[in-house]
């Protein structure tokens, strides 16, 4: 009896211990697994935030990352980016997931409507899973206590009720719909470029009320000092961009076809240089609308016409860095043969770069470019016209058909700020 009782007791005790042990093991595993899942979610969100290039707009010059305060000049006044660190007082640390979702998809923060300088007009196509990953990341960024600056938008655009009307006319939250006729990679590229990369916000022309014109998708438009290029597949293929060219441009800031400048420098530095190999191919496949390898055609150097106006200006001012025959110099200046900034109908960027120069660009310990000087006070309109025409006929298939009045208009209309 005693033995039996003991036996029963021992058996119960063993079962209890086993049960407790298994609970502890499974419970521990569950906690550890949850932490692991959360860490993976945050890491995924960090990658998505990089491709979304949040840091470029939400970090002030010389300021703390994501703390906001960078000014944006819009036709309606100055808008300042906001603090999106996890600080609960001045940042977005107090946002619920629903708050975050509405800001990203509908342009509505807990404080009211956001100006569409925040690209919710692109981000609204984010999947719920990606929005959750982004939320996990932003709730775990380093908090920075920094008050937001009031926007300097003039009447009547400072009335945020107007944004509700703007959203009614121009914005509808929807879901990303893959094109069934295209591959998974192409659709992934479309998602990265159109949604996270929000490339259309600069590269698609806007109408009179500042909404993107869908029928002119990626056809390029003048922003301020520079023109966001036409990046339609038709134009990129005409210029003979290859997958490798675009990959080089997006990872190192330069390629066989030239370098990035202006607003594209932060895009490459903060964002596209972080694309995984697979996502990079998806992006280039989408942009080129071609998944197959593309043959890189020889770049055109048509030879110098020494009697042409512009030749001596090129040799005196440009050849020192860009090379006597336009061959360029690594880490100093891009080659000119087939250069995408020259090889296009619009001369806006070529003139703009000559007038304003390019600031130094640093990518990593082995890749950086020294500044290109500004020549606004060195060249008159005739000299500029002669130089641009000379470069077009010498290194591209474009004609020397740019008139002085066109150059004069660009100089007059553009802002003389250095980018």
């Amino acid at each position, binding site marked *: 009896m005693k033995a039996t009782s003991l036996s029963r007791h021992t058996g119960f005790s063993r079962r209890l211990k086993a049960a407790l042990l298994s609970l502890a093991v499974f419970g521990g595993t569950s906690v550890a697994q949850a932490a692991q899942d959360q860490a993976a979610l945050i890491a995924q969100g960090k990658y998505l935030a990089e491709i979304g290039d949040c840091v470029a707009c939400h970090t002030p010059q010389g300021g703390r990352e994501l703390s906001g305060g960078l000014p944006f000049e819009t036709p309606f006044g100055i808008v300042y980016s906001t603090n999106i660190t996890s600080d609960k007082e001045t940042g977005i640390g107090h946002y619920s997931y629903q708050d975050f979702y509405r800001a990203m998809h509908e342009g509505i923060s807990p404080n009211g409507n956001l100006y569409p300088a925040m690209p919710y007009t692109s981000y609204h196509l984010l999947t719920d899973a990606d929005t959750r990953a982004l939320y996990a990341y932003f709730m775990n960024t380093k908090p920075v206590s920094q008050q937001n600056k009031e926007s300097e938008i003039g009447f009547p655009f400072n009335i945020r009720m107007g944004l509700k009307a703007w959203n009614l006319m121009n914005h509808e939250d929807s879901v990303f719909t893959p094109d069934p006729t295209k591959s998974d990679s192409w659709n992934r590229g479309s998602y990265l470029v159109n949604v996270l990369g929000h490339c259309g916000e600069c590269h698609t022309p806007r109408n009179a009320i500042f909404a993107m014109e869908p029928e002119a998708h990626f056809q390029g438009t003048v922003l301020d000092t520079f023109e966001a290029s036409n990046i339609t597949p038709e134009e990129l293929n005409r210029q003979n961009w290859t997958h490798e060219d675009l990959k080089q441009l997006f990872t190192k800031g330069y390629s066989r076809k030239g370098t990035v400048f202006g607003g594209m420098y932060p895009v490459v530095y903060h964002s596209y240089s972080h694309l995984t190999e697979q996502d990079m191919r998806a992006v280039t496949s989408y942009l080129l609308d071609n998944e197959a390898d593309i043959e890189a055609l020889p770049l055109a150097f048509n030879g110098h016409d020494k009697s042409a106006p512009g030749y001596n200006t090129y040799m*005196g001012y440009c050849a020192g860095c860009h090379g006597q025959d336009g061959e360029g110099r690594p880490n100093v200046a891009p080659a000119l043969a087939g250069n995408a900034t020259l090889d296009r109908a619009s001369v806006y960027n070529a003139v703009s770069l000559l007038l304003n120069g390019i600031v130094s660009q640093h990518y990593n310990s082995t890749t950086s470019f020294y500044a290109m000087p500004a020549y606004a006070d060195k060249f008159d309109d005739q000299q500029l016209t002669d130089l641009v025409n000379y470069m077009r006929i010498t290194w591209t298939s474009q004609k020397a058909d740019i008139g002085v009045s066109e150059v004069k208009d660009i100089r007059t209309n553009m802002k003389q700020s250095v980018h």
Partner: protein
Amino acid sequence: MSQHIQMTVNDQQVGPVEVPEGLKMIEFLHEYLNLTGTKFGCGAGVCHACTVIVEGKNGVSEVVRTCISGVERFVDKKVRTVEGHAKRNAAGEITELTPVQMAFLEHFSFQCGWCTSGFINETTALMERLAQAPVAAADVEQVIEEALKEHICRCTGYVKYYQGVKDLILNTKGLTY
């Protein structure tokens, strides 16, 4: 292929002289004029050691880097190099340095001297600009920083150069208010 060019260097008419196409200005100064005071540093327009002065429109001079500029840029222009600043006697011997040169000597601004011609030309052009458009004394440090920040010195650490320029500007009449 070659070309004939002419210009004025340190008040001396030069040319027409036949030079090959693609000749950089610093090569022209060194190889054709024997003016070797302008130094070749990086060869990429970064260090600014090779800076010379070109007389611009309306009496406003500009500074130009000769290692990245072709001779074509200087045709029919008036150029000043470091050899052209000090006063000389009939025999060509230096009799008096300029205030800029004296300031750098007095402040022990340089050691190896490779960057000195660039600093002298940039500072001289700055002094000329300030003579036409004086600045507030309180802004002098910022003005100097803006003018000289691209000039690289690997010996003295800039402080002695900047201090020399600051003292010179503040002690020269008409440059500040």
